[in-house]
């Protein structure tokens, strides 16, 4: 979302307050905009954070390099569309697969050495990786934010009968909903999903009934990182992509995970929706307050429910 449009809507809000009644349609319009944009933003948050939530729930591993995986996905999309001339959607798939595959190397090579270490050591290792990723991205792509060429059907607005909405955000919502359905099915209705749930619930017990949690973890880590890369690719149009993406939005992903509860699909979705809508509403109605709302909501939720919405106490 650009600051300009948010400021315009803030102006509309002030106008309404000044002249009172007679502007109800205007108010409804703003509310619909907030819900729509908030939903699109929430889908981005969910796609990017869900992998982090499951890996943290499964191994208790604090992965601050998750944002770097998302950023890597974004830059792969930029390279494939701008330099190699692929179109947007296939590039997203390439980014997700490539980053998912690469993440296995990191998991096997580095992360697994630290599963039994303290939070602090995990934080340091992964933030070190994030710094290196930022530096590498700056070296190859420069510090200036990148954009990505979109196909025609993702540009402009789409008519939903009663009003027009930006096509790209509509696409984001549809894609998010589809992914949620797939993930929900995989999580709740397949054998692997059942194993993951078992391992999140009680790792030792799962191991003792013969589930290979290590291999399971490598798999979920790869899928989660791939989804993060997909989210990074989707974010280019939504938020812009510069090397600082890796740390700038990491905080947001971590908040979604903490508020939702570790390892819970349902919790991550709920947290993404709540935070996405609150953040968008805050930016529409009070542009100056910036991210205030997200953090205020986070603090309140975590003070009341320390393990998040659906986390285990």
């Amino acid at each position, binding site marked *: 979302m650009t600051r300009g449009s948010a400021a315009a809507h803030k102006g509309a809000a002030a106008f309404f307050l000044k002249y009172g009644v007679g502007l109800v349609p205007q108010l409804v319009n703003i509310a619909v905009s907030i819900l729509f944009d908030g939903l699109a933003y929430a889908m981005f948050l969910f796609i990017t954070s869900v992998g982090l939530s499951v890996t*943290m729930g499964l191994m*208790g591993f*604090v992965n601050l390099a998750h944002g770097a995986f998302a950023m890597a996905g974004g830059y792969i999309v930029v390279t494939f569309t701008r330099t190699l001339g692929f179109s947007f959607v296939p590039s997203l798939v390439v980014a997700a697969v490539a980053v998912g595959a690469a993440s296995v190397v990191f998991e096997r090579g*580095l992360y697994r*050495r*630290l599963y039994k*270490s*303290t*939070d*602090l*050591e995990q*934080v*340091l*290792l992964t*933030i*070190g*990786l*994030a*710094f*290196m*990723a*930022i*530096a*590498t991205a*700056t*070296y190859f792509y420069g510090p200036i934010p990148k954009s990505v060429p979109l196909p025609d059907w993702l540009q402009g607005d789409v008519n939903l009968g009663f009003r027009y909405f930006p096509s790209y955000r509509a696409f984001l919502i549809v894609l998010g909903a589809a992914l949620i359905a797939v993930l929900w099915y995989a999580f709740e209705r397949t054998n692997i999903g059942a194993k993951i749930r078992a391992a999140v619930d009680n790792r030792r017990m799962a191991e003792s009934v013969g589930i290979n949690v290590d291999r399971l973890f490598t798999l979920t880590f790869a899928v989660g990182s791939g989804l993060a890369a997909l989210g990074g690719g989707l974010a280019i149009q939504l938020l812009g992509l510069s090397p600082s993406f890796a*740390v700038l939005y990491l*905080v947001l992903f*971590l*908040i979604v*995970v*903490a508020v939702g509860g*570790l390892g819970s699909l349902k919790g991550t979705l709920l947290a993404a929706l709540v935070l996405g809508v609150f953040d968008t509403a805050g930016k529409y109605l009070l542009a*100056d*307050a*910036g*991210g*205030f709302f997200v*953090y*205020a909501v*986070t*603090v309140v939720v*975590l*003070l009341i429910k*320390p*393990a*998040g919405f659906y986390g285990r106490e």
Partner: protein
Amino acid sequence: MAASDIVSATDCGQVRQRAAEYLLKRHRFRLAECLPWLLALAVFFAFPDRMTFGSQVLVMVMFALSLDLILGYAGIVTLGHAAFFGIGAYTVGLAAARLQWTEPISGLFAAAIVAGFVGFITGWFLLRYRGLTLLMLTLATAILLQETGNLRSDISGGYDGLPGLTFKPLLGVFDYDLYGHTYYLYALAALAVVFYFVRRIVYSPFGQALTGIRENVRRMHAIGSPVHRRLVTVYTIAAAIAGVAGALFTQTNTYVTLTVFDFDNSAKVMVMLILGGTGRLYGAFVGAAVYMVLEDYFSKLSPTFWQFGIGLVLVVTVLFARRGVLGLFENAGQYLTVRKKP
């Protein structure tokens, strides 16, 4: 225990005495401890034109020292320690810009009180939580403060900050000079006072209790130690010290912006401390000095290269040198003494 399972009263007394002697011995001032202070003075005479940078190093040493109290000794992992640094910095900055309170030394005390108060309030609520929840809550606290500052940019100056602050001469005599000589010595003196205070805390029974909490919180609960109260106390003290560091930062720079609350600032001080070594007092000195000097040198060459380098150093530190630079020295020392014996 070789003698017997039943310890007689006299034995008990002896054991107590031995324990007390051991603690006193640890507490005793060692000659090697003069070294960093002499070095700091030597730097003053060797690099008279780099004193502004020198003051920055001293400020970061103090900031890292405050983090060492809670992270190194009490084992509280926080990602929002910059909150207190920022509060200290803004206490002095706002007092000077809006209230014309420009006396530097009383400014330090004011910063300590305000930051300590905020530390007490937030600590009292937050230190019930652990792990990821605590990380997120501390992080959110720092960002909420930053956003509050941004919201009231009419008072705080927003991201443009409060530039061009002026402070009264130190003790009414020593004025601010262009090369920052006065403020280097001023920061060094403040650091010495704070360090003495921290050293006393660390070697006191209270400090031992903190180490106990870090090592095994359940056992501390079991022996009846008031864990939460201890944690809040040390969090408050660390917040106050971070506030003093922030106040010194504003006074030596004569400006302050909202970036002091950045996540980067919290992460940076943690990196410094880890590089130097946690829970060992002088780790903050080594870590902050090494980090700042390397940053100063390499970021001039290429900021990208520097960022990659510090990331690599972190990864290598975690994989191979978990106890920091000072830990490496200790390992080397042990290796040599073991080799000598046979």
